[in-house]
């Protein structure tokens, strides 16, 4: 203990943090080799420290997943210290002189705000055993404000249980909500096509699962707003039917009027009651709408004749549909009212200069539209501010296509060939930070789910 104290005081002296007064018995057991203040790089983002504490397989797993989720939110500067998980919450103030870390969140804890500030933290998160053996408590601290921001109960017992990861992801989203006011996207999943089979994967890259049955060539998947259902195209001999698939049950049924011709790129209206989709056949390629709730009323929204109209995406208020049309000779992004009236160019382009633009997807907050546009022969991901219609290019390395929005409206997943093979990458459009999500053989046509909040969803 003396050694720790001496070392700690030396380190703290180096940091020269004013107002950092530690009683002797409240000094945390900083391990040898910790270099406080060296690995922390101050940035624009608030610092986040995931605290250590009692160690079990369960607690270690929860902390690791939580830490990764918070990192992937791109909202924080994650504070990484060698031996960092030995930084614990503090010691119980009620124990007086008794040394040792607090291992129960039910204790009357002393939170060592001064130390966390010294480490660069603005927020810290503790994962500790809760009131009974089946419950953990995830507590969020506002370090600068020296207050507790939230306490999220987490009922998990077995890290190998199927529902474990999703439960921790939901807790991570609540941590984010407690810290920033908005939940993240940790409890969400992506669909994509690999060699004709529909797959899904968690937003952190775990739990890769095949979704479509063997022998079906799947294409253009989309989520229902509830996250409990999805739709995809089952291709056979040049025709494609839309298949509704129950995520929990695996049940499938064909959307009635799509049993014939080639139907694809389905998108749900925000209320989940109707879908818009592309139909190709004798009459060309046009956008249609169908009321699923009433199982009726197929409406043709565009009449192409000499042009193709495809890839519809609803605005979050359900009043508009953006789509692709090549009515000027090459595909560009258009917008119309949900009844097909008022069709006009949406994303501006210079005739003869701007390349083909495809695959639009409206952001969850309605403020932006993501799409890809050919630049020097390669597709690149763009976003457009839907009010000012100012377009911004997000990518430039390799081929980058088919963007899809995360439920937080700040991350975009897309297919990139920058490493040689088509994989899903995720970009934080505020910082430009990218990470590779998949390492599969081949990935195409990603579709990001809404937040999966229902406990009944596996």
């Amino acid at each position, binding site marked *: 203990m003396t050694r720790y104290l001496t070392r700690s005081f030396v380190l703290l002296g180096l940091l020269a943090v004013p107002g950092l007064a530690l009683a002797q018995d409240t000094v945390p057991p900083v391990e040898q080799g910790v270099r406080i203040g060296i690995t922390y790089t101050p940035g624009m983002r608030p610092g986040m420290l995931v605290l250590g504490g009692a160690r079990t397989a369960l607690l270690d797993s929860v902390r690791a997943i939580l830490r990764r989720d918070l990192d992937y939110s791109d909202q924080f500067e994650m504070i990484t210290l060698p031996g960092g998980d030995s930084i614990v919450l503090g010691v119980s103030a009620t124990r007086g002189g008794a040394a040792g870390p607090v291992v129960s969140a039910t204790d009357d804890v002393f939170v060592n705000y001064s130390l966390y500030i010294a480490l660069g933290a603005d927020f810290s998160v503790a994962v500790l055993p809760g009131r009974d053996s089946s419950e953990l408590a995830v507590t969020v601290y506002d370090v600068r404000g020296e207050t507790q921001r939230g306490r999220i109960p987490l009922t998990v017992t077995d890290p190998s249980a199927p529902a474990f990861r999703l439960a921790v992801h939901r807790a991570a989203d609540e941590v984010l909500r407690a810290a920033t006011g908005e939940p993240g996207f940790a409890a969400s999943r992506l669909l994509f096509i690999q060699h*004709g089979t529909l797959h899904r994967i968690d937003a952190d890259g775990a739990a890769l699962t095949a979704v479509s049955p063997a022998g079906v*060539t799947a*294409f*253009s998947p989309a989520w229902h707003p509830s996250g409990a259902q999805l739709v995809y195209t089952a*291709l056979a*001999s*040049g*025709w*494609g039917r839309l298949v509704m698939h129950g995520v929990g049950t695996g049940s499938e049924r064909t959307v009635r009027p799509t049993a014939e011709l*080639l139907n*694809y*790129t389905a998108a749900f209206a925000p209320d989940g009651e109707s879908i818009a989709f*592309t139909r*190709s*056949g*004798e009459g*060309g*390629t046009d956008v249609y709408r169908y009321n699923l709730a009433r199982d009726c009323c197929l409406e043709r929204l565009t009449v192409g004749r000499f042009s*193709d109209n*495809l*890839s519809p995406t609803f605005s979050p208020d359900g009043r508009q549909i953006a789509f*692709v049309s090549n009515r000027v000779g*090459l*595909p560009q992004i258009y917008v119309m009212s949900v009844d097909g009236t008022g069709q006009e160019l949406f994303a501006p382009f210079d005739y003869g200069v701007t390349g*083909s633009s*495809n*695959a639009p997807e409206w952001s969850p907050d309605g403020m932006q539209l993501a799409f*890809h546009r050919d630049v020097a022969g390669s*597709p690149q991901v763009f976003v457009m501010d839907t009010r000012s219609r100012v377009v911004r290019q997000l990518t430039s390395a390799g081929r980058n*296509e*088919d963007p899809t929005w995360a439920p937080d409206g700040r991350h975009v997943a897309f297919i990139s060939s920058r490493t040689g093979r088509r994989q899903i990458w995720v970009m934080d459009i505020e910082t430009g930070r990218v990470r590779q999500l998949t390492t599969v053989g081949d990935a*195409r*046509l990603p579709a990001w789910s809404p937040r999966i909040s229902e406990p009944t969803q596996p």
Partner: protein
Amino acid sequence: MKFKFALTLGLGAMVVAAACGGGQPEVVMPTVDSAAIRDSIARAEAARRAREDSIARARAEEERIRRERAEAARRAAAITAEVRSMLSSVINFDFDRSDIRPGRDTDMLQQKLAILQANSALRIEITGHCDERGSDEYNMALGMRRALSAKQWLTDRGIADGRITVRSMGEEMPVDPGSNEDAWAANRRDAFGITGGGDALVKPAGM
């Protein structure tokens, strides 16, 4: 039958003569005309042969007809296969285009047109395909446009609309999985398949 009877009678008389021995009245041996018998046998044999020859000739004729029919069927099947092969040849397209290129591709379509004209029951489907470079979703529409282009070419020349269906597989079914100019050029295509009336096809005149 008469001949056989005479022979039996003669032999019977000889036996009787032998059994009676000496001292008995002389028995007059019946005259056996062995030449007539041989002649009879030969005629019978000839008749039998004639019958057999007749049967063999009939069988040979039957076999010849059977062979001819088999040969005709084989020739018809070969012609059908040849016509099917001509029909299934693909036409290709330029990048991001769906217009029919004059030259080889119009020659191919001309051949298909003649086949459709010569086989009025024949119905076909045209499936458009794309290379991997365009947008995946847009390629579905582009494939359909390519199929419609070929259909339009044929219906403009008198083929009934209902005999041709159109489909698209976008970039989902490449014939060459490579990522180079040759592969892309091969993958930008219309494929032609038979949907009905294709069991026995005739070759158009002049082919």
